[in-house]
């Protein structure tokens, strides 16, 4: 049961993030415009000011604070990395 809830939450997060990215950075593309492991920077999906918009969005949507030293590609540069990062931040808040 817990696994199902967790999976749903994860899917919701992915949907929310993917929708945001497509709406704001790939407006003429479909929701399948990129893979979960595609690098936003390398694929030209999000540029440096786009990262600022993304940061603002995830802070407000998931009620987390992204510290300056966390604004690194390892945390933010693909959908999968974003999800892992956000989940870690949320878990840390709850702990």
């Amino acid at each position, binding site marked *: 049961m817990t696994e199902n809830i967790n999976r749903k939450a994860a899917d919701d997060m992915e949907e929310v993030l993917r929708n945001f990215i497509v709406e704001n950075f790939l407006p003429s593309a479909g929701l399948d415009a990129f893979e979960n492991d595609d690098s936003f*920077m*390398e694929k030209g999906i999000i*540029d*440096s000011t786009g990262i600022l918009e993304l940061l603002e969005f995830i802070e407000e949507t998931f009620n987390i604070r992204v510290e*300056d030293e966390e*604004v*690194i*590609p390892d945390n*933010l540069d693909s959908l999968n990395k974003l999800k892992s990062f956000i989940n870690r931040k949320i878990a840390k808040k709850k702990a």
Partner: protein
Amino acid sequence: MKFRKDILKINCKKEEEQICGFIRKQQLSMKREGAVVGLSGGIDSAVCAELCVKALGKERVFGLILPERESSPKSRKYAVKHALKMGIKTEVVDITTVLESIGTYERRDKVIREIFPEYDEQYRLKITLPPDLLSRDAFNFFTLTVDDGKGGVKSARLKKEMLNGIVAATNTKQRTRMVHLYYYAEKMNYFVCGTTNKSELMQGCFVKYGDAGVDIESIGHLYKSQVCELAEYLGVIEEIIQRTPSPDTFSFDVSDEEFYFRMPFDKLDMLLYAWENGVSYEDVCKVMGLDEEQVERAFRDFAAKHKATEYLRMLPPFL
């Protein structure tokens, strides 16, 4: 050409001849009688002015010095001293009043007060990118730092809207200088000689129709470190040669490295060359003593900045 430590070394005599030939050719093709150079007190404009003098003669070069209330006093001092050394005519026009009238400071400060409500005219400010790209990976995000002049320094990461507000207001400084340069150039039937170097052009560190609003770019093919080499050869004054490169746009001292490039020019230029010319990671690592991750990080940053600033280098398209 094999990548090596001295790959960027130039033959200064040949370079001087080539650039002077270029300047003369452009002058003739534009049917202008001389060159106006904006003298910032920095090494790029100093070198450009020297080259214009060598190409056209000192009587045909006019130096315009355009400080504003937040410029470093060194800028005007060094520009005047170097102009005296070259024997060219100059004029100093303080653009503060113009900037005040178009709301440069007011608009910028309004944005800053959204972040730091206590900010006032006593404060100094700067914006910077994360430092030391080769040691630490980070996306390009700007941080605003303010200093109250009493030991109180605060910083905040800039959100997109705020960054845009500050940059748009600040860029009016360079665009106002362009207006003045063209006033004098057209009055005298001179052309405006740009002073942007290759490192800046490639990475988009200039203002469209600001410092890039010019008739020719005489050092646009030279990396910063090559400009420095040429400066020594041409006899630019020592104060300018030793001066840390800076945009001189903010009231709080900030170097070009802190503001935009995230690494020192000696490393930046070699890496830019390597990136531009497809040098293998292996060769770069071997010659520069870096590891592959560092090189990849630098190349990724260059690609991102180059792509994000492509529109700055474009001429206006039309149907």
